[in-house]
């Protein structure tokens, strides 16, 4: 663009807002094929990203991201007869989902394990109440409603149609008032990404790796103006992909985008470890914003309280501290003392550790062999973890203290007191709600696993409605644009309850895919 052209645009009084509102004064320009673009806010260049003259590929539904939400959307849309492509930026599929802890909150399951194992009552309503309370009521209630009512159906869908396998137990995790967290046989999210991938591919969806979205095509921000397609970088090639029915954004969160996470939550400095895969950056959210999408609550970013302390990964042993509280796991500091109610929410558990001070890294989870299977673990995982030094094993609490370098007397005192609390049904130190299925640390062998918080999950994201449609900054639906999973915000409020991510992703992915397939060509 020449200086004169810039001057002309400036003289016409064009502002970002006037462009976004539908380019009233801009009609002459958009009519000649310019796309809405705020890539460089305030710069006139931002207005002249030209719409592609031809499309390199055309699909009914174009899904961005190959994690739980993207694959669920692809399965649903392809199952409804649409041609579907899943674009994955990374060289491997599955995003954070394939490496997640594999825990799934659902009030019921195909086998009715909670009921059959005598683990108390639950309902979608109770799941909703916990989720809202755990998110400090910042959650958008209609979105929570969709998740809790769709969770069981979505779990069974993956079991029935994708051959996903769950372990025969249900755990109670931090912030939940019921035993509703299901564990996968694989012990990680791969159990479900594989199920969903097989379902999507069987229905004809195509997953293409190394394909990075670099722009979302929309002519203008008129409420009737649909999203047209995407600009994609694949290898050394840039191509334009048309979406005849819809684009589904399922690109995940931005925990690895340090600049973006600090822009919204400045205390999440680079020194924090991160559990996420490298691709969890926020560009898709920015592209969606640039074509008018609204966002909410981007500052709500969760730390996983129990990551591997040195690297921050959420390896298999790092899932145990999360799954253990319902069966009596105890968290202790270097001083051998408890520091939190183990059934507390993730934000509370994370900051209880951080507030101990940096020199108090790591803290430890103490559990015993009789708890292992009940808390969704396996003896194979235990043995492998012991061999690698991630789990420390001992026959007595004294010996365990020695092996992990904690003061033995203090640890023994803490454990004895906690055993007594379980017996008495009351925890005067931290007010943990004691249940009858919690197991005192009397019978060994005993295990310890080290832990420390790491940046984990973005609760905020693109604003969607209960149909998974993306909403623009003026409150209108952006036609043919859907978002599901971590890229969308509002389901979890200020703090996501552990094991709610998967139902969020699979349920909304399913909703988005189903609705996308219904769009007119």
């Amino acid at each position: 663009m020449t200086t004169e052209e810039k001057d002309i645009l400036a003289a016409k009084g064009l502002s970002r807002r006037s462009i976004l509102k539908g380019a009233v004064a801009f009609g002459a320009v958009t009519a000649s094929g310019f796309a809405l673009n705020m890539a460089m806010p305030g710069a006139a260049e931002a207005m002249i990203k030209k719409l592609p003259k031809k499309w390199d590929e055309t699909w009914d539904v174009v899904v961005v991201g190959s994690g739980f939400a993207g694959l669920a959307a692809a399965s649903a849309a392809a199952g409804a007869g649409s041609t579907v492509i899943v674009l994955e930026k990374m060289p491997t599929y599955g995003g954070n989902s394939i490496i997640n802890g594999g825990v799934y909150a659902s009030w019921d399951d195909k086998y009715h394990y909670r009921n059959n194992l005598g683990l108390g009552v639950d309902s979608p309503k109770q799941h909703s109440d916990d989720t809202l309370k755990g998110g400090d009521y910042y959650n958008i209630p209609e979105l929570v409603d969709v998740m809790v009512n769709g969770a069981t159906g979505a779990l069974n869908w993956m079991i029935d149609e994708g051959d996903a396998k769950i372990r025969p137990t249900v755990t109670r995790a931090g912030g939940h008032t019921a035993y509703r967290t299901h564990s996968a046989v694989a012990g990680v999210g791969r159990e479900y990404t594989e199920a969903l991938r097989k379902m999507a591919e069987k229905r004809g969806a195509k997953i293409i790796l190394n394909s990075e979205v670099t722009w979302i095509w929309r002519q203008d921000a008129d409420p009737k103006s649909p999203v047209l397609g995407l600009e994609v970088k694949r290898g050394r090639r840039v191509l334009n992909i048309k979406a005849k029915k819809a684009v589904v954004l399922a690109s995940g969160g931005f925990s690895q985008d340090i600049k973006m996470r600090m822009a919204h939550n400045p205390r999440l400095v680079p020194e924090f470890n991160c559990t996420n895969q490298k691709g969890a950056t926020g560009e898709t959210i920015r592209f969606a914003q640039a074509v008018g999408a609204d966002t909410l609550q981007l500052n709500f970013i969760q730390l996983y309280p129990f990551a591997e302390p040195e690297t921050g990964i959420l390896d298999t042993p790092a899932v145990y501290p999360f799954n253990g509280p319902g069966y009596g796991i105890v968290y202790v500091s270097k001083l051998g003392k408890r520091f939190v109610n183990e059934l507390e929410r993730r934000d509370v558990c994370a900051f209880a550790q951080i507030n101990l001070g940096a020199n108090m890294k790591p803290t430890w989870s103490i559990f015993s062999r009789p708890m292992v299977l009940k808390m969704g673990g396996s003896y194979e995982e235990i043995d492998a973890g012991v061999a690698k030094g991630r789990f420390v094993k001992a026959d007595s609490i004294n010996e365990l203290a020695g092996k992990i370098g904690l003061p033995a007397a203090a640890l023994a005192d803490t454990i004895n007191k906690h055993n007594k609390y379980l017996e008495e049904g009351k925890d005067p130190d931290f007010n943990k709600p004691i249940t009858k299925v919690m197991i005192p640390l009397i019978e060994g062998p005993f295990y310890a696993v080290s832990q420390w918080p790491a940046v984990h999950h973005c609760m905020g994201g693109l604003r969607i409605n209960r149909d998974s449609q993306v909403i623009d900054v003026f409150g209108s639906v952006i036609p043919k644009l859907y978002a599901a999973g971590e890229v969308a915000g509002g389901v979890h409020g200020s703090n996501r309850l552990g094991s709610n991510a998967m139902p969020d992703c699979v349920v909304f992915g399913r909703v988005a895919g189903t609705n996308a397939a219904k769009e007119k060509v």
Partner: protein
Amino acid sequence: MKKIWLLLMVFLVTFSVLCLGIDNRGAEAAKAADSGKGAKATCQTCHADFAAVIPKGHPAVKGSDLTACTSCHAPDQTGKAAKNAFSSRMHLAHVAPKGNQDCLVCHTWTSGKSFGLKGVKGSFGAPNKEDVAMMKEIFASWGGSKFMDNLHAKGNIGCAGCHGKDLPKADDTVENNRCLTCHGPMDKLVKKTEPKDFKDRNPHKSHLGDIACTVCHKAHGASKVYCLDCHKKFDMKIQGEKAP
């Protein structure tokens, strides 16, 4: 048959050494190519007498252009994965760093329409200007980088060895089966890299599933152990990393 191949190798090594030795003539040809006169350069610009560069015992070579070679060494257009392909040896001898020839000394090209060999029927594809620029860039990497492409070049494996018969596109990738033609079978590869201590820390048996070889092994860029992105403490190495 084997003897002929061996002789050809000797011939080509000699040939390339000579090319290096008479750099000015190579430069002349390159200059001709640079100035758009590539089409006018012939083999004889450098090799006034083929007898001087072919090995002893090689039948007499007649003619002044590429057909002198291709009349016997028909270019392989099947795209099969082959070590020591004639095409690879010819390219190695003539592109950087050993040689300095422009593509069009040997090749015919009409942008967006065809790309072939002088005096040989058929076209390998329809590259445009950007495609040819990319191929030149990649050939330079293949001939002289520290990446995996050069490791293959040293084994006389050219583009077709990995990419098949068609000219590679900008978004081309290489399927695992192609790699496994030479480096397989998979079971054997898995066994070869199985760590003694923890068998599940095997880069060829990832918890991410059946991943592509190219996730770690990059032909035209620095290879990188993908595992290390998360598992920072693992002790793993890979060939074709950029030299420090």
